[in-house]
């Protein structure tokens, strides 16, 4: 049996801040008397990740995703719990441990703003003791895959967000890390840049079989990259499983959409009692319905109404995610029912 790359048990992180009332009086009051606010950003979190896995860590803003990433990389120390990454306690910050991991944060840069990316890469080469041959080979390969060969000697502050993000990825992967933590690596990027980054990560993973934990708000990232999803709500794990199982969380319902030649009457008996979402023009409807009703209802609509086009799919992951974020109790109920089985 192989040792997991990541093993977290009962992880908790508490942050302390304080409340301050607005205005100058609020400032004076809080200068002399602070009212501390304790918040558990992560509580009782368990996770195991094995070599070669790509795990998507999802959750709404403030759910604790970035806090987890920072604990995994040893940037911050957990308040409670056990954590081993590659067999080491990350917050002991052992040199060899730090050489085996990488972190990319979409909202923070490790590149020097006022110099070309290549200068930062050369510094990183020295930090991580990467040999000249290996360094050259890595830079050539990654820059060609990402299409940034011409940008290596341009000052970072002159690069677009997408170009900078590609450089950030290169900077993080120069030393061949065994575990990579990607915290919203595609945030703010256009669709083409997102796809480039995703393809690059996929290629890198295929080549090295490294472990990857990725947080993202873009479901395309998750669909394209992850074998496994971990959902975190309010610091607690809500779901841990495959993408397929995740899509079935709301049942085996299907989603079918119809486009009509002309606006439809919403009161039409065919649509009564169904879970429908219409567009403003009433020419397009999304219907969520049980799998067994799909054929019959679709046939009726096609024969009775002026259908132009129709498509069916399982409930898209985005829709499941949205529903869970609005109703996190679904997961609690689901966990309860699984326990009782």
């Amino acid at each position, binding site marked *: 049996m192989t040792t997991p790359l990541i093993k977290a048990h009962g992880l908790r992180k508490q942050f302390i801040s304080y409340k301050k009332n607005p205005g100058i009086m609020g400032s004076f009051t809080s200068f002399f008397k602070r009212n501390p606010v304790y918040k558990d950003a992560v509580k009782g979190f368990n996770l195991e990740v094995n070599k070669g896995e790509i795990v998507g860590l999802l959750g709404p803003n403030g759910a604790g995703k970035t806090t987890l990433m920072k604990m995994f990389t*040893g940037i911050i120390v957990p308040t409670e719990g056990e954590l081993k990454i590659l067999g080491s306690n990350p917050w002991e910050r052992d*040199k*060899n441990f730090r050489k085996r991991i990488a972190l990319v944060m979409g909202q923070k840069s490790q590149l*020097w703003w006022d110099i070309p990316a290549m200068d930062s890469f*050369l*510094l990183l080469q020295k930090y991580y003791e990467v040999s000249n041959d290996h360094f050259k080979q890595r830079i050539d390969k990654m820059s060609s895959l990402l299409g940034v060969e011409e940008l290596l000697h341009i000052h970072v502050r002159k690069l677009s967000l997408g170009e900078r993000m590609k450089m950030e990825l290169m900077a993080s992967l120069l030393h061949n890390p065994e575990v990579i933590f990607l915290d919203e690596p595609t945030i703010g990027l256009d669709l083409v840049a997102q796809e480039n980054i995703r393809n690059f990560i996929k290629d890198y993973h295929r080549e090295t079989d490294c472990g990857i934990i990725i947080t993202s708000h873009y479901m395309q990232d998750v669909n394209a990259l992850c074998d496994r999803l971990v959902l975190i709500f309010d610091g607690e794990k809500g779901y841990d499983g495959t993408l397929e199982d995740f899509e079935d969380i709301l049942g085996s319902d299907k989603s079918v959409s119809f486009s009509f030649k002309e606006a439809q009457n919403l009161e039409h008996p065919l649509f009564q009692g169904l879970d429908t979402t219409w567009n403003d023009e009433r020419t397009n409807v999304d219907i969520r319905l049980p799998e067994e009703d799909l054929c019959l209802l679709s046939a009726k609509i096609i024969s009775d109404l002026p259908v132009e086009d129709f498509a069916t799919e399982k409930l898209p992951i985005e829709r499941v995610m949205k529903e869970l974020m609005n109703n996190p109790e679904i997961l609690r109920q689901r966990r309860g029912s699984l326990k009782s089985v």
Partner: protein
Amino acid sequence: MLKKLSHYWDVYKKFVSTSVSVETSFRTSFILLIFMDFFFFFSSIGSVSFIFDHVVNIGPWEKNQLLFFLTFMLMIDNLHMMIFSQSFWEFSFHIKTGQLDYVILKPMNTIFSVFFRHFRASSLFNTPLFLGYLIYYGIQVNLTAFDWVMLPFLIVLSLALLVVIEFILSTSMFWLTDGMGINFLRMQMQQLARWPNFIYQGLIRKVLTVVLPILLVGSGPVHFLLDKNAWQLLATMVVALVILTFVLLATWKVGLRRYDSASS
């Protein structure tokens, strides 16, 4: 050990080259910094010379002895500006913004990664001037051959004591988050050390010699060079450096554990 030193030296060379690359990107600022150091040097020398136009001695020292002390401290200041100064300011900014995250991740000693990161090449242009004056006043106070051999080592020792005290003060930023107050306190400490210890009396002198031994930075080596009977101050300085290094390592470790990082 040699391999480790060589690794740190390789990284440091890159710190220097990337810092030079950044600094020279902004040419006017680069030149203004050279002039700033230049004016600071001559205003310091000028002030002391002016005082000695009206008095013969300050404490036990006559003009050349005090100017030797001052040029010794200005030399320390020049090296401090060149090697460390900017890193102190960046450190407080990095704590506040969470940029320290990436520094912590680097596979090196974090004290090294934090405080040796920024090199100010502009200060290098004034080093020959500072050194020239130090040598000139060294000749005026009749340094012996032994003193000249000792001088570079004493400069390194003084700089080491000064920055270790400043590192310890800066460590408090892990708790305070905002580093403005600490950075100004640091600068005041430097200001105190720019005058010989006999300027201060009573409890203040004792505190600044034993508890926060900032007065030893210049006074320890210069008293020793001018009078070999004053070796106790130098010995105190070495002991203080060793003790404070341990204090720094311990507080830094606790500080790092305290680091919360800024949210994304």
